[in-house]
Each structure stands twice: as C-alpha cells, then as structure tokens.
C-alpha cells in the first residue's frame, strides 16, 4: 500500500504484456570498467565454486571450471586463478581514485558471493584469504543504502522497470529481461515460461545434474589414466560453460539496457559515486594497515556500522527526493514530501532590522506526514527551511503554516502562486565521517556493559534512612 504507483505500474505491465519503465532517470552508477562475475556452485556445496565467468562490460567472458570443487586443491587452484584478476582491478580503481563495481545476476548470486567472501577470509591459504578480503569489500557494502560496489542485475533492472509477474519471479534474470524485451508475436507468458527453463541462479538444474553433470563427474573420478581424466575434465568444462555463459550474457544485457541514453542523468548518483570511492579507499587502507576483518562484529564495530548505515539511509533518501523525479513523486504520494501552493507570505517586524517570515501553503495531499515543529527544506531553488507551526484542514485542502528559518532573503522575494515541494534537508555525507570519528572517541574505553566482566556490587557506606521508601517519597 505504501507504493501505489508501483502497483499501478505492475498492473499496466500485465495489461500491456510488457514491462513498463517506472523512472526516467538512471538509478545506479554504471562504471565503464565494471566487472561481471558469474559463479556456479555445486549442489549440496553452497560455498563452492564449480564454474566462474569473469569479464568487463562489453567483453567476452573468461570461464574457469573445475571438474569437482570438492577436491580442495582443484578448488583452491580456481580461486587462485581469480585472485590476480581482482587484485589488478582493485589496484586500477585505486590508482584512478574510483571504486570497483561487480555485477552479478541476482540477489541469490549476490548472497553467494557474500557468503563465499566470509568463508574464504578464514582459510589458511594467504592467496585465498586475500581474494576473500577483496570480495568482502563488495559483500559488506551490499546491504548499505546507496552502495554502488556490488550490483545484482535483477535488483538494478527492478529499480527501472515494473513487470506483470510477482516480485519474487523478477529475481530470475532471463524472465525479467523477457518482460522488458518481449519477443514479437509471442504470448508473454509462453515466452516467460520458456525463459524459466534456463538456470539464472548459482546452482545448476537438478535434472541436468542427474542426467549430465553427475555422470560426467563420476566418469572423471573413475578415469584410469591422465588422458581419460583430461577428457572428462574438458567434458565437464563444456557442459558447465553451457550453463554459466547464458547467465553472464544476460547480466551483460541488463547492463546494456541500463546504459542506454534513454535514462536521464541523476545528479544524486554523483554523490553516491563519490561516497563509494571514499569508502573503497578507507577499506583498502585498513587492509594495508593490517586491520583484521572479523566474522562477528564486536559491540563497538557493530555500533559504528549500524550508525553509519542509518545515516546512509537518511542521506540516500534526501538525495533522491532532491534529484530524482520518480522518488519525488513517490514522496508526494506517500506524504513524505509536502507539495503545496504558496498562498501567502507574512512578514513580522520584530525590531530594528529584525524580521520573521511565515509561509502559508495549501496542499491537496491526503497522506501528509507532518507534525508541528517539523523542519522542512525547499527541495528546489533557494536554500530555504521552514518549521511547521500550524496544520489545518479546510475542506479538501490542508493549510500548512511554516516559520522560515534559513533563507529569509529568499522568502522576502517570494510571491504567492507557485507550487513548492518541501522535504528533508540536503544529504550530509561528510557528516557520516564526522559521526564515526566522534564515536571512535566515545568508545575508546569499552564500557563494562559491552564487555565480558560484570563489576562487583559496591554497597554504599552512607547512613541509610530507617524507612527508605518513606524517606524518598518525602522528597517528591
């Protein structure tokens, strides 16, 4: 119910048998040097990598396959092959003072990469550990609002399009692409059903496993000679390439669709890109300084991370409401943005060269999230804030009065008539760093409440009143 616009768009997509765009501006940063990583794990081995496809945007994939990821040496060899690719990419990004961006096919693939990163960080092999640390940057950033380091193709497409299928079904990249680019002259549901036959996640199809993959792996293990083993290794490589390449290609297609010039620039993304670059530099510097990446956060690390995430949510929302037309309209519908016609401006002369200004707005919104005392900022034009002093219903309209805080000069020049949008203040990304620095100072000494030892009780040596409760009640 919170996003009726999205419900309406999905209904329209169903009616048209084709996905409909829900925004006009791009919602994600697309790095020209972004890398696509497609991993396949083995059934029953969630943290394995059976096959990997890697490449840049617009480039063919390099595909790496092991015959059986349960053979640790083979698995580690594959991971060691991937390490220099990521090491070089991260180094290149650092030199360019930008950030690396990894695209995966879906939320499931994103979760797989995150889990793998956590696991690889704690292996005995330095090279594997290093790969885990590099992937951890992407994994740790992925839940943070506005992050641009690890992108799932389905997630990015869903920010731009609404389809006529259920949201969970949108997580299959090929069906999502089918809704966006439906084949001409073919029933959309038949086309989607056909698309669903192609695996797009991190696992192969169970039927394929039993009919093709498992026999090939068994043959590999039963091979009597190196030549026979090499033959079966090649066979496994070929059958898994047939699975991993379509996923890689679909991810490329998603990036191509989102890179199309039809999507207008979104200035809020510049701030997010800048923020991501700074986060990346901090992460890499911390690795160089030898800081350990724990599996579980200490109370201090947890406090700092959750506080930073909360500030990121606020900042991203503020940025989007300012620069993104669709986000602004959603805000108007939800009531987090006040859209009202400026009815009048009242000037109050309080003393020599001392003036206050009240803006009176009339809004037809019926779901406003406003309270007296709220501070709102003009979302476009002059830097102007108001503190809401009165809200009153007049027939179908709500009349809002606000005392001008910042921007009195601009208020003085205003005239009645225009429709104005008010919302939260501008994002303050440097404020996140300031807040974390302050938290670092506050938490330099761990309090016992968040440590391991409970202090002993220390009874008071003072004389205690005979009737304690009565004595305290006498004070109230």
């Amino acid at each position: 119910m919170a996003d009726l616009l999205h419900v309406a768009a999905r209904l329209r997509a169903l009616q048209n048998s084709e996905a409909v765009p829900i925004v006009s501006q791009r919602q994600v940063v697309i790095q020209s040097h972004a890398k696509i990583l497609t991993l396949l794990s083995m059934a029953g081995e969630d943290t394995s990598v059976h096959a990997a496809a890697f490449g840049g945007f617009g480039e063919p994939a390099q595909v790496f396959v092991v015959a059986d990821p349960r053979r640790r040496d083979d698995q580690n060899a594959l991971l060691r092959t991937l390490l220099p690719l990521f090491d070089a990419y991260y180094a290149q990004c650092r030199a360019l003072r930008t950030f690396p961006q990894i695209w995966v096919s879906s939320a499931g693939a994103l979760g797989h990469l995150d889990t793998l990163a956590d696991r690889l960080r704690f292996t005995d092999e330095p090279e594997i550990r290093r790969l885990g640390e590099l992937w951890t940057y992407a994994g740790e950033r992925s839940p943070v609002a506005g992050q641009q380091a690890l992108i799932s193709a389905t997630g990015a497409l869903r920010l731009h399009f609404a389809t006529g299928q259920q949201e969970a079904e949108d997580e299959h990249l090929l069906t999502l692409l089918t809704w966006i680019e439906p084949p001409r002259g073919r029933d959309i549901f038949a086309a989607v059903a056909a698309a669903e036959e192609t695996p797009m996640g991190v696992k192969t199809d169970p039927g394929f496993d039993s009919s093709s993959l498992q026999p090939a792996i068994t043959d590999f293990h039963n091979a009597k000679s190196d030549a026979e083993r090499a033959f079966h290794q090649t066979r496994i490589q070929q059958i898994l390439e047939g699975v991993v390449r379509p996923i890689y290609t679909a991810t490329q297609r998603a990036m191509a669709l989102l890179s199309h010039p039809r999507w207008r620039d979104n200035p809020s993304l510049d701030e997010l890109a800048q923020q991501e670059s700074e986060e990346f530099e901090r992460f890499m510097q911390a690795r160089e300084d030898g800081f350990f990446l724990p599996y579980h956060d200490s109370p201090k690390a947890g406090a700092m991370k959750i506080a930073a995430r909360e500030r990121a949510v606020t900042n991203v929302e503020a940025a989007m409401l300012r620069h993104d037309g669709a986000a602004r309209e959603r805000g108007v519908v939800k009531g987090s943005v006040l859209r009202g016609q400026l009815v009048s401006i009242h000037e109050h002369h309080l003393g020599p060269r001392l003036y206050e200004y009240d803006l009176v707005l009339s809004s037809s919104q019926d779901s406003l999230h406003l309270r007296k005392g709220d501070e709102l900022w003009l979302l476009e034009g002059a830097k102007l804030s108001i503190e809401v002093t009165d809200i009153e219903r007049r027939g179908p309209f709500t009349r809002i009065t606000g005392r001008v805080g910042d921007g009195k000069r601009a208020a003085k020049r205003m005239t009645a008539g225009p429709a104005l949008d008010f919302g939260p203040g501008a994002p303050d990304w440097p404020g996140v760093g300031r807040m974390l620095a302050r938290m670092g100072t506050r938490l330099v000494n761990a309090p016992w409440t968040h440590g391991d030892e409970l202090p002993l009780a220390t009874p008071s040596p003072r004389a205690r009143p005979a009737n304690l409760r009565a004595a305290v009640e006498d004070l109230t």
Partner: protein
Amino acid sequence: MSVAPEPEGAANAALNAVLDSQWQGVPALVLRSPPGAGKTGVAQRVALQSATYLQQRCMVVTQTNEQAYDLTRRLVTNRAGLPIYMFARKGLNLPDDLRHHTGLRMVERTGDLPAEPSITIGNAAKWSWIDSADPMFDMQVVDEAFQLPDYKYHLISNLAPRHALIGDPGQIDPFVSCEIERWRCDPSGPQVSCPAALVKRHPEVLQLALPVSRRLNEDTVGLIQPAFYPGMPFRAMSRDRSVGFQVAGIMPFDAALDGVAAGASIVMVELPPQITGEADSELAQELVASIIRLLRRRAWMSDDGRIRDVTPADIGVVCAHVSQVNAVRERLGPGLSDVFVETANRFQGIERPFMFVHHPLSGRADATAFHLDAGRLCVMLSRHRIGCWIFGRQGITQQLIRFAPAGDRALGIDDDPEYQGWRAHLTLLAALSNAGRMFPAVYGLAPSNAA
C-alpha cells in the same frame, strides 16, 4: 497458605526492592514494568535517592525531549530544593511552564555539567555527543529503556559506572531504519533493545518487575496481560473506574458507548469491509463523529473516586501511521483541539481516560510485520484508564488468516515477534467477539464472528 498482598502492598514492596538495590551498589538493574505501573515515577525516585541520600551525580536518559520535559516537571518540584539540570542543545524551545522555572538550570556545554551531587536530564542523542571516554557521573538512569537500541546505549554507557534501565518490554521495539541482516542472529546485537542485550551479555544483572498497573483497570488487565505479557504477571491497582451518560443513546455508535459504560473497557467498532489503504477518510470521519457523540451524551466519569464530566482533554486517538493521525486531526476542528492524536510510537508513556484506536490492520490488503507488531497493538490498547474503542473495517480476521506469518526465523533467536503479533491480534479479536464486544458502526451491519 500464603496470601497474595493487596496491589498497593505489592507495588510498595517492588519499589522498596528497587530503592534498596541502589544501596547495595549493584552495577546494573533492569526493571521491567507493565503499562501504567508508574515507571517514570520510579525513575524519579531512583534519581532523587541517588542525588540526595547517596550523594551521587546522577544522569537521566530519556528517548525524546517530550519525555525529558515530563520527567523534569516531576523532578523540579522536589522538596529537597535540589536544582535540576537539563542537558540540551542551544536554542531548545522549552515548554512555557519549564522555561521560567527557578528550579531548572539549562546546560548546553559538557564543561558546564555539574560536578557536585545532582540530577541532569537529557535525551540519549544529546548524551551521545559528549566528547569524553571517561565516566562523568556516578549513576545512569535510562527511562523507557526498551525503546533504546543497544548501539545507542553503548555510546552513553561509559558515562557512569552504575545503571538502572527502566521500561516496558511489551511495547514497540527500537526503530532501526537500515538493513540489519548482519546482526539478525545475535541476541545482543546493536539493533536489540538495550535491556535485552545487557541481560544477554550479563545474565547476572539484577532484574526486577513492577507487579501492578495503576492505569489499567481489571477488565483491561484481563485482556492485555495474557495476550502481551504471558511471562510477566501483573494486576490492576484500581477497581473504581467507570463512565456514564446523562443522555440516552439512539445512534448506532451509542451501543459501543453503552458497552463501555456497562463495564467492557475495550470494545470494537466495525465499519463495512473495504480496502482503503493507509488513509481511510471514512473511518477517520466516523471516529471523530464518535468522539463528538461521546461528548454530546454528556458523559461523566469516575476515576479512582473522582467524579467529573468528560472533556476533550480526556480523550486520545492513536493510529499506526502519521497520515492517519493527520486525517483525524484535520477533522477534529477547533472545539476538539484538546483531543490528543498521535501514532503508537509517540503515544508510549502517555495515557488518557478514553482512547479511540485506529486498528493497524484496518482497510489493508496485506498484513506486514509492522502492522502485526504485538508491541504496537499493546501500546494502542493500554493507554486508557477507563474505556477504549477500537475502530476497524470488517474482515481483519480473514485477512490475518490469509497472511499467516511465513515463519522466517533467525538462528539463535528465540523470539518471533511477527508470529507473536499475529497470534495476539487473533486472540484479541476472538476475545472481543466471544464477549459480544463487536459493535457495528452503521445500522444493518452484522458484527463479525472472530471466535
């Protein structure tokens, strides 16, 4: 055979135990309180004892400025003549009654905090901005502690070596806006309420509970305690709460009014089923018309022996969403401006003799964790001293059955708040239906059978 003490005696014994714990010098006390048990009064007494008899510097932490004002009002009139300090940002717009109070001293800078035995009140956010890693107080009292997430408590906990965390565990969990999957399996994670996290880290800390609600009457306790506090028994202090009308009822809503007058402290008023979304203008209009009807029938109330006419200031309206609050406020008009309308989050710690509740699931097509939240419903149904009318669209029971929780559990976490809320909603609706407490808002509408 032991005899359970009278409510007054049980409440006094609990307060004795709380005050005594401070003389024992326990490092921390977690005090659980049911709705309306007087926890802010306990915080007041713990702070006064700390600054006077124990000669300590006591800091009091509130969650909002409004809570800080409320506690300050109670403390500035102390008979010891102790000045009360408020630690707040420069330019804070104090309420008129506090602005000129001679017993209140404002502190804006850390360097100006008192060094002698004293009480200083501030909200958690303000305390967290102190640039010091060392204790600056002897005692820290956290009011409404179950609303404070552990990571915010962490930021202020080293300001004093000893702590008293006082709050209601049945109310709304701390609000965290960001993604918390990383800590979901951690029962003492940064998103958890600070008393729960502290007890998880240090199970040996002293834990006490207040056994008596001074606000809720027996009938309400009979509905609220089993549904929302199954592990925390409590009783009602008062047996003398009632409402009556000087004008007989003839309108559809009058039956619901008369139901409360007959002793049913919580009843439900049903509107015809309709998917309306968050804002339901018809329900808001009906709710306001019902408030007007209550006043037009010249209601009088008896509250612990005090009998008087009901005024708009005796009435509160609680909703789940700000947009619903606005929809009601906009329709109240100037004559009813004293009716207090707020969301459940902001109604925590506030009471009124009569409450009108916009049911959180009314008019919705789904049932999300937010709307199922047992804490939210508990707050909504525990703000009244005498009577509570719940307004909602018919079909909520069917809606609950359609949207049974998926059972998405986190490893290592025993609680399942979504299921608990779902269960509490069904239990409450069944109890109201069984007791014949469902009233139609319009003629010809048959009451729901949620039993």
